[in-house]
């Protein structure tokens, strides 16, 4: 639908804007214009896919750079390579989704916020967060993590110096983001590029889906009539009623959340987005008739799960290391922990799909580097002894508030 709208933009046809999909979900419109721009420039969908690849490679390099600042280059390299072979993002690389471009901008925003913070970098961070949000509105999660990270950093640093440097820099990023988001929204409306704006005009819908105990928080059209209610107050009331009815009907609310978490964070990766056109029963090689595409894809999915499990083992250990570390709250890694925590919490309440993990995966990989770094110190006792203040403080070396 988005690709077809982009083609209509190139053809000079504006009728797609009247589609109720774009009036309800106005936040999709900037991505349509991005696709239209690339199609106009290169005239081929392949360019969009190749750009996806470029965005993903930049994201991968940013994982290395951020992890390198939290730990060292060796641990960062291993996690970055692990991300590069992690199948889940690769399986999405050929799909025309807004997730690739937005994640790259978000990672740039995080990089400029965390690494060598300064006023200029705070401003740049705000700009990148805005660009990422323009493509896919998920910046609110990063901003919430930034604010929590900055405020928690106050503990033991309740000094004017900290407030002036860290808190105000964080606020600069947020203000730049809010300002640009406001200006762009007005510009899209005024120019007629998005007559109904570029916001989510039915924000309740994600919660109606996410708290539907029948579908376990997954997409279903059962309550789709809510989107057709034009009056926002009435829609909000109706959404509240639907959610209450859903909970009343539910036999066990904790079990619902347990099942929902399992679907979101534990289900096998879905390949249908990019591999739906593949004939599964066909052999990969004519010489080996029994090795079909289905078997090959299943092996990729199993490998994906192995990386995912390894990652969670490492995150669990990283959490314990941070908990035992006295300066953890000041650490860059603590920002990522906060972001992961916010992400987990958010998906308890809104619609879930396994592909929504894509946004948070880089944070998982960066955090995993902490354990590799700690492991490396264990492998090399001489180096470990040289670091008087422990592994976490070496990462903080040179950082001044």
């Amino acid at each position, binding site marked *: 639908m*988005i*690709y077809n709208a982009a083609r209509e933009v190139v053809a000079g046809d504006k009728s797609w804007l009247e589609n109720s999909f774009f009036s309800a*979900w106005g936040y*999709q419109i900037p*991505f349509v214009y991005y696709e239209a721009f690339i199609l106009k420039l290169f005239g081929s969908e392949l360019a969009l*896919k*190749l750009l996806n*690849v470029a965005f993903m*490679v930049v994201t*991968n390099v940013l994982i*290395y750079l951020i992890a*390198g600042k939290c730990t060292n*280059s*060796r641990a960062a*390299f291993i996690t*970055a*390579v692990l991300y*590069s072979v992690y199948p889940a*993002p690769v399986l999405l*690389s*050929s*799909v*025309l*989704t*807004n997730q690739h471009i937005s994640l790259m901008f978000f990672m740039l925003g995080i990089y400029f916020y965390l690494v060598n913070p300064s006023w200029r970098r705070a401003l740049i961070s705000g700009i990148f967060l805005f660009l990422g949000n323009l493509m896919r509105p998920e910046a609110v999660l990063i901003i919430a993590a930034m604010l929590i990270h900055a*405020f*928690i950093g106050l*503990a*033991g640093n*309740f000094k004017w110096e900290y407030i002036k440097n860290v808190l105000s820099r964080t606020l600069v990023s947020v203000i730049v983001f809010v300002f640009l988001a406001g200006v762009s929204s007005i510009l899209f409306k005024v120019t007629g590029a998005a007559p109904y704006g570029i916001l989510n005009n039915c924000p309740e819908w994600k919660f109606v889906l996410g708290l539907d105990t029948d579908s376990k928080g997954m997409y279903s059209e059962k309550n789709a009539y809510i989107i057709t209610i034009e009056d926002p107050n009435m829609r909000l009331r109706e959404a509240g009623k639907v959610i209450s009815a859903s909970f009343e009907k539910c036999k066990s609310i904790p079990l619902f959340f347990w099942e929902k*978490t*399992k679907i979101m*964070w*534990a*289900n*096998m990766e879905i390949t249908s*987005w*990019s*591999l*739906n*056109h*593949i004939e599964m029963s066909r052999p990969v090689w004519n010489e080996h008739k029994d090795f079909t595409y289905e078997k090959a894809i*299943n092996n990729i999915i199993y490998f994906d*799960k*192995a990386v995912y*499990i*390894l990652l969670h*083992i490492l*995150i*669990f250990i990283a*959490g*314990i290391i941070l*908990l035992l570390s006295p300066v953890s*709250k000041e650490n860059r890694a*603590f920002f990522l*922990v906060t972001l992961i*925590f916010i992400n987990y919490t958010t998906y308890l309440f809104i619609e879930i799909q396994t592909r929504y993990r894509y946004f948070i995966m880089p944070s998982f990989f960066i955090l995993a580097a902490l354990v590799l770094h700690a*492991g*490396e110190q264990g*492998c090399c006792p001489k180096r470990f002894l040289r670091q008087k203040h422990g592994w976490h403080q070496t990462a903080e070396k040179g950082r001044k508030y």
Partner: protein
Amino acid sequence: MNILRKTGVTDCFLNIAAIIVLICTILLSAITLYQNTEVVLSVKGCSVFVYLTLLLVIVSVTLYFLIKVDIPKKIYIVLIIITSLIPRLCFVLFVQTPVDGDFF
């Protein structure tokens, strides 16, 4: 501000907040780990554990090897670009997902 600093109330509150965030994240990752194992066992995907063992060995060996040799950071970046680019580029070029598979 001075009173708060003297009593340490703010420090204490923020410390507790930091610990809560950390403990919740640890618990959530433990739950996820448990649920993932449950899913793997339910689909009888034992090869996941084989891959996991292989990965652990590869990561450990690579880490050990990297400690021994000093590689410039620029080389690391080039290697990451290559390892990231090859699977994605091959996937895009060979799989040829139809454009109507786009989503939002």
